[in-house]
Structures are given as structure tokens and as C-alpha cells.
């Protein structure tokens, strides 16, 4: 199988598993316990906290561990500025869009971008509250200029939360300089373990707890800390801090080659959000005449794992809400397929995808694709 669905979940990096191993064998201890086993666990958690903080550009004590980005998003949307209005991007992940009722939607442009001017215009004359805008979109990979948007939000008297689940490790994050008060992170999207994430919360920001019970995480979050998971998350972040830029360049080149070949060889094919700044590993595209489900099934038979958009929504015959927010016509949106590359992706994987796509859709010859790849 060739796995090209890293935005759904990226396999665990060997470096992360290596760091977790001691905590699965000899070492154990509840990080909340006062005895030595507990202190060792707490020390490991704090080291991971520092590794994550370094990659996210925040202070270690601003990292609060959660079970993942879904919990972090729900917590932020529910717990920040309780009672005040909530403004969220229309292309946000469902963990934001479904978190609380009564959200007011901020529309992106045709590229999926929310510009500072568009945000200012849509917030004008509205009461202040909480704004949530994703750092990078999970389907299109389109990035928002969070720092510029935070300035608009602040001017409006509101505070900004950003879902950075897909952005961490793929594009530089600078929480400290970003102006947002909270950031949602996920470990498994970047090759860390499943079941762990974090909410980065700026010092002094009040938040209502989502889970109650116990005095963990400075009394802000309840539940025994997932020590191996947190250690693995930290190790994956440390590795990306060292090699993330090179990995992003490598994946970005493969992605760009794929898109050039696709657009050259499949007449009428489109790439969504291509004019915008995007995550280097993501391509959301459509081949005319092909419904995404049919294309994905054919690719699946050829051993290629891609998605029609958010894994959480796959299998439905409803077009991507992200593309609808970008005002992509219904027929085109129903054909959208997401390619997302990651640390296990090899050069040959993308060539194999192109060959398969071509043979399935009859858009040309496999050799021609290979030629473009070579060039």
C-alpha cells in the first residue's frame, strides 16, 4: 500500500516510538504522584512540554496536554470568553464548527483565505467575543496569516484561537508573536502518537474547564497524564524542530511536481487553493468527469490510499464544506480528492499515483507522467 493520507493520520515516527519505549517497559509512574516514580514521569512530561513549546513558539508552561486536537478545539470554543459571541471561519474543521451552537461564520475568499481586510469587514459593528480561525486547512492546506488576523481581532476587542493541528511541524509556528490567546495541536498529524494533543493557552488567559476532577496541569485539565504519549509527542516535535524545514522542502517539491504533471496531463483538472500560501504536503484536486468516491475506490484497488477530504466525513455524498465556503461549484466539489504527503513518502509514491490516476482516468500515458516527474 502507498499511503498518501497523512492529514488524516501520519504513521508514528520511529524516533517517537524510541522515546516512548522506556515508558512502556521499565519506567512507569503517575506524573501526579509525589514519589520517585511519579517525579521521573513528571520530569519526562516537562521535557516533552519544552520540546513542544520550542516547535510551537510558546512557553513550556503554556502547554496543556489534552487527548487530541478535537478536545482542544472543543475546550477553546466552549471555555474561552464564556457567554460572548463566537466567530469562526466557514472552512474550519468540524471540531470547531460543531463545538457549540450559534456560531457566526466568517467567509473565506475563492482561494480559501480569510484576509485581514475581509475579517475586519465581517466583524464590523459586531459585539466582541471569541474568534477561531485555523492556521492551515486540513483539506486544502491553505494557510491563514494568523498574526495579521490576530491584530484585527484584537482591534475588535475579541480574542483569537487557532486550530493548528495540521500546521505544527509543517510550517513555522510562532505562538508568542502570533497574537492569538490559544492554539490547538495534535500529535498524530505530525507522526507523533494517537490520543494526545495540546491546547496552548497564553499566560493569564481565563478558561472554563471542559473536564473536571483532579488537579492536573495546573488545575486547568483533569485526567492522568498520558506519559508515553506525551513523551512521543515531544520527541516528534524535537525531530521536526531539527529536520522539519528540510522535510517540508522535500514534500513541497514532490507536491509541486505532482500538481504540474496533473495539470499538464489531465485537461480540466484543478487544484483548489493553489494561488494561496499552502502547507507544502497537501494537494486538494479534482479531475473532470470523476466523482471523488469512484476515483478513490479505483485508486484504493491499485493500493493507493487517499481521501476525499476530512477523514471524519469520508464516505458521505456531501461535498466538502471547505470547497462550498470557497464557492466551488457543487459538481466540481464532488470530485475533490486530497493528497497529503508525510515523512514516509518516497519519490516513487507520487509517480505511482500519477501513473494510476492517468490509467484510471485515461488522461494520457504513464510514460508521459514519468517524464514530467523526471523533469
Amino acid at each position, binding site marked *: 500500500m502507498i499511503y498518501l493520507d497523512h492529514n488524516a493520520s501520519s504513521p508514528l515516527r*520511529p524516533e517517537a516510538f524510541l522515546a516512548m519505549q522506556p515508558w512502556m517497559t521499565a519506567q512507569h509512574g503517575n506524573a*501526579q504522584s509525589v*514519589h520517585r516514580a511519579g517525579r521521573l514521569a513528571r520530569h519526562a512530561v516537562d521535557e516533552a512540554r519544552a520540546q513542544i513549546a520550542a516547535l510551537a513558539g510558546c512557553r513550556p508552561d503554556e502547554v496543556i496536554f489534552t487527548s487530541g486536537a478535537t478536545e482542544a478545539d472543543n475546550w477553546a470554543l466552549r471555555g474561552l470568553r464564556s457567554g460572548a459571541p463566537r466567530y469562526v471561519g466557514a472552512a474550519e474543521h468540524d471540531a470547531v464548527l460543531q463545538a457549540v451552537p450559534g456560531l457566526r461564520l466568517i467567509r473565506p475568499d475563492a482561494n480559501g483565505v480569510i484576509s485581514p481586510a475581509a475579517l475586519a469587514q465581517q466583524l464590523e459593528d459586531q459585539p466582541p467575543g471569541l474568534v477561531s480561525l485555523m492556521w492551515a486547512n486540513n483539506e486544502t492546506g491553505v494557510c491563514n496569516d494568523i498574526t495579521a488576523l490576530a491584530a484585527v481581532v484584537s482591534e475588535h476587542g475579541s480574542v483569537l484561537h487557532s486550530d493548528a493541528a495540521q500546521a505544527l511541524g509543517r510550517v513555522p509556528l510562532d505562538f508568542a508573536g502570533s497574537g492569538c490567546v490559544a492554539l490547538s495541536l495534535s500529535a498524530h498529524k505530525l507522526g507523533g502518537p494517537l490520543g494526545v494533543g495540546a491546547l496552548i493557552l497564553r499566560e493569564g488567559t481565563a478558561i472554563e474547564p471542559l*473536564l473536571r476532577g483532579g488537579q492536573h496541569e495546573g488545575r486547568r485539565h483533569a485526567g492522568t497524564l498520558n506519559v508515553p504519549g506525551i513523551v512521543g509527542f515531544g520527541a516528534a516535535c524535537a525531530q521536526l524542530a531539527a529536520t522539519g524545514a528540510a522535510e517540508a522542502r522535500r514534500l513541497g517539491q514532490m507536491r509541486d511536481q505532482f500538481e504540474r504533471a496533473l495539470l499538464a496531463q489531465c485537461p480540466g483538472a484543478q487544484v483548489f487553493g493553489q494561488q494561496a500560501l499552502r502547507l507544502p504536503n497537501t494537494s486538494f484536486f479534482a479531475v473532470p468527469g470523476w466523482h471523488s468516491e469512484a476515483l478513490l475506490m479505483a485508486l484504493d484497488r491499485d493500493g493507493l490510499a487517499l481521501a476525499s477530504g476530512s477523514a471524519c466525513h469520508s464516505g458521505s455524498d456531501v461535498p466538502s464544506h471547505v470547497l462550498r465556503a470557497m464557492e466551488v461549484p457543487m459538481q466540481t466539489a464532488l470530485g475533490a480528492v486530497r493528497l497529503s504527503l508525510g515523512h514516509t513518502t518516497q519519490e516513487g509514491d507520487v509517480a505511482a499515483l500519477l501513473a494510476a490516476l492517468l490509467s484510471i482516468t485515461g488522461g494520457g500515458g504513464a510514460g508521459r507522467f514519468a517524464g514530467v516527474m523526471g523533469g
Partner: protein
Amino acid sequence: MIYLDHAATTPLRPEARAVLAEFAAADGPFANPASQHAAGRAMARRIEEARERLAALLGAEPADILWTSGATEANNLAILGRARFAASLGRGLVVPRTEHKAVIDPVRHLAGQGRQVQWLDPAHGAYGICTADDFAARLTGETILACAMAVNNETGQCQDVAAIAGVCAEHGVPLHVDAAQALGKVPLTVDPGVGSMSLSAHKLGGPTGIGALYLRSRPRVGVEPLQFGGGQERGLRSGTLASMNILAFVAAAEAACAERETAMARLASLREATWQRLTGGIAGLIRNGTATHSSPHILNISVPGVHGDALRALLGEVCLSSGSACSSAQAESSYVLRALGHSDDLANASLRLSFGHSTDDAEVTRAVDIIIEAVRVLRERAVP
């Protein structure tokens, strides 16, 4: 280091480690089980099979098992989610004061929002547990939820969940059971009347960060989700499923349940021997719990005449706890022990020894010697 704090967290069982190693291997399985491609479908099948296996251990329907990040989340979902869902049905909750913090704190929050909480005080000498009669006296037509933990996390004393569930069923009230300390330790099934039950993997040799909520669908116990998003777990608990943790959890749970009778017989005799040696070596030692009607993995003792912090400071290599790990970071003596009539000082001078699958007799013997010696030193110092 001698680890006698299995009620706080346990080392991984080999069965769980094997699952994690399988998943972490270079050619190991991965994929989001919500994905439609072959890898995602294969993962989804393994998750559903794990659900069936866990349900079988409890005598539950597989569809009634929801994966959560642990027992804390499961308790919060069962309590806060229930109260939000049932807001129009009634405002009452019936809850013993001796429940775990992950039950007490959400219930307190609801009380602060105007819900009518009937707090039950366990009878003197009951070691933190309440009876079916205690519940029967407080259940009304307004009650939307009652809570009863199966095994008290501090004393190990067992609450008679079957009888309490029976009383709740008569009143049409769903009973929520916190079974974090119970699965694999004491017989556990979802009795009629149990509406929900929370489970934790890391208390039985599974990984941290994973647990489950049994939530009855027939007759249905309605809850409102705590987190929304991708609509996983029948829309009741959104978030990407932690596949490797789920499978490791179930592997550990099966191993714990398969060896339960022999393992608990071993721990019961180890615990009684430990108690005999401790009480033989420490004059006036108090046992907080009974030899019967308690889970064999917990021994809770109070040492009169010494300062608790000074005692623990002398135990160095012996990892044990003064009570629940979740409250041990705060300097607050145990409610469960104070309810026994212990003074704050005596409650603070209490030790919880908790055993598990990796505990061996020799290390317990060494720990007992260290405890006896520490008490001797402290008591000598106290003599003017």
C-alpha cells in the same frame, strides 16, 4: 525502587506491549479508522473487534461501548453529559461523598449550577462505601442520575453495585458506576440498572490515555456529548480513535480478566501477610478496610503518632501513596479517611499500598521492613 502504587498507575502488561510494538513496527498497521481506503477500513474492523471483546468481558452489547481518553473523561461524559441531556427530566443527583475526584468535581460543578445534589455520607466504619438503603432513601422522581464506584480507590472497599443498581432500577434512575479500579480485580458485569460505567486502561496494565464508557442504549441513557467534531463513536465522542491504545487496552483487559481469580487470590494472601507483618511490627497500626469485601490490590493503613510527610520522606525507594494520586499534589487529607473518624493528622499519616501484576513477594517484604523501620525511627525521635 519498589513500586507499590498500582492504584495510581500500573506498568504495561506484556500483552499490551506486544500490541504497541506491532503498531510501531516499520510495516505495522496505521491509518485513521474513519478513512475509507483499505488501510482505514482494516483499522476500523480491528477497532470493532476490540469493542466486541471488551463488551464480552462486561456482558455488554458492543454498541454500548464508547472509547474515551480515560476514566476521567468517561466520568465527565456520564455525569456532565447526562445532566445536560436530562435538563428537562429533573435536577437531582445522588452521589456518595467518597467517590473519586473525577466524579466529585463534575457533580460539584453541577451543584454550583443549581442542580440538586444529594450527597451520601458512608456509615461510620464503612470504609468509604454506601449501601443500597442509603441510595433508596434519597432517590426521587426528580433524580436523573446516581453514582456509585465499584471499588473505592483509597481503601479498596467494594460498594455493592448490584444491589444499588437494583434500587436505582426500581426508581427508574440510571446508575453510573466508576469501575476504574474494579475491572480485572473484582467480578464486574453491567447489572440491570447500570446505565453507564467508566473504565480505565492504565489501572489494569494497559496504556495511559485510553479508557471507555459503557453507555446503555436499551433502555437508552441519554447524554449530550462533551466534544463534537468528526462524529465518531455514534456522534457521542468525536475525535480520531487512538487505535493502538484501544487494542493494547483490550489486550491488557483480557489478560487481567483471564487471570483474575488466580492473580487476586495471590494478591489477597500477599496483602494479608503484609498486614500481619506490619501490624506485628508497628504498635497501634490501624487498617482502613476489611479483608473481605475489598479489592485484594489495596491495603490502606494509618500510623498513629507519626507525621505523614515525615514518614513518606523516609520511605525513599518505596513508591506508594497517601491516597489518590489525583489529589496527592495538594496538601489535603483524605475525605474518605476523615469520614472514618480519623483526625487530619492521622488521615495524613496514612499509606496506601497497592499491588498489581508485576508485584513480587520479595519486594513487598523489603518495603514492609522499610516502613516498620521508618516508623520506629520517627517514634523514637518523638520521645523526649
